[in-house]
C-alpha cells in the first residue's frame, strides 16, 4: 500500500518529536496504544495557565508511518489552540489532511485518543494543586 506524500513527509520529517517534563503541572501527557498493531503513542501538551493556549506539543510514536504522521500532524494542529479548541479536533481532520486509506483510519483515531488523554491529564493536574514541595 502506498503512503500519500503528506504521510511520507511527516514520516521522514516528523514535527515536534521529543518529550516534555511530565511532572510539570502545565504539561499534560497522553499515552495510548492500539492492541491490533502494537502501536504506542505518547503525546504531550504544554499549556499557558493564564491564556489556556497550548504553547508547545511533543510526541513520540512507535508504530507505522500513518501512526507517526497522524501524531506529528496532531502536534502541529495543537500548537496555538486553546484547550477547548483542541478537544474539538476530530480524527476525520487528520484522515482528510493525510489522505489516509480506510485501513489506516485507526491510526488517526489513536491520535485523537492521545490528544484527549493529554488534555484530560492536564485538566486533572490543574484541579489538584501541585504539592508544595515541587517549588
Amino acid at each position, binding site marked *: 500500500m502506498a503512503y500519500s506524500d503528506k504521510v511520507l513527509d511527516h514520516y521522514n520529517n516528523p514535527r515536534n518529536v521529543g518529550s516534555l517534563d511530565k511532572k510539570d503541572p502545565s504539561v499534560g501527557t497522553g*499515552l495510548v*496504544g492500539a*492492541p491490533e498493531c502494537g502501536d504506542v503513542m505518547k503525546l504531550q501538551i504544554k499549556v499557558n495557565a493564564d491564556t489556556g493556549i497550548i504553547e508547545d506539543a511533543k510526541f513520540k510514536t*512507535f508504530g507505522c508511518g500513518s501512526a507517526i504522521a497522524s501524531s506529528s500532524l496532531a502536534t502541529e494542529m495543537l500548537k496555538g489552540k486553546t484547550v477547548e479548541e483542541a478537544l474539538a479536533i476530530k480524527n476525520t481532520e487528520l484522515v482528510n489532511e493525510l489522505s489516509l486509506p480506510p485501513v489506516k483510519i485507526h491510526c488517526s483515531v489513536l491520535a485523537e*485518543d492521545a490528544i484527549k488523554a493529554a488534555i484530560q491529564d492536564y485538566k486533572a493536574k490543574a484541579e489538584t494543586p501541585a504539592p508544595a514541595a515541587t517549588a
Partner: protein
Amino acid sequence: MNELNILGEPAGGEHHHCWRCGHDPAPEPAEPLSLFCQFCNTLQPPVPDYYAFFNLPRELALDLAELQRKFYALSRLLHPDRYTRAAERERKYSLEATAILNDGYRVLRDPVERAEYVLKEAGFDLGEQRSRDVPPELLEEVFELNMALDELKSGDQSAVPQLVESRASFQQMLGEIDGELAGQFRRHDHSEAREARHTILEQIRKILNRRRYIRNLVSEVDRQLTAHGA
C-alpha cells in the same frame, strides 16, 4: 423450509432427511444431529459449526482428551480412502467433512483460537479494538520497552539487559493472562443465561486483546535480540 439446490441438497447446511434413504431424525428429538444417517449409515452433508460437528457442548473449557478421542474416531470414519467406491456425493461429503474435522480440531484444541471462534460465532467483531482495552500501567511499560528497542536498533548494546528483563516480565504476564482466561472460560461454561454469557465473552475479548498485544511484544523483543546477536 427445506429449499433444495441443484444437487438436491438442503440449503443452509441443516439436514433433516437423509439424502439417500429419506430417514427423518426430526421426530426423535433425542437423536443428535449426526454425520451419518442413523438408519442407513450414509454420510450426510457435514455441518460447518465445529462444536456441532464434534457433537460437543458449546463450552470454552473443553475436555481436550475427549476432543482428541473424538478427532481420532472421526478421522477413521471420515477418511476419504473409505469412500473410494462410494457414491460421488458421499465422496464429496467425506472430503468436506475431513476438511472441517481438521480445521475444527486445530481451532478447538487451542484455547485462544477456540475462544476467538466462539466470539466470532457470537457476532463479535474481532478486528475492532480500542486503546482503552490496554491498561495504562501496561502502556508505560510498553513505551519504555520500545525506547530500549530503539536503542538496540541503533546499535546500543547497553539496552540488552533491560530488554531481557522486560521480556521475562511480559512472559510472566502472559502466564497470568492465561490463568485469567481459564477462569473466565469456566465462568462462561457455568452461565446459562445468554446475556450473562455475552458479558463474559466481552471480558474474554478484552483479555485476548491484551494477550495478543503482549505476545506481539515478546516476539518483537525476541526478533531484535536475535538480530543484534544478544
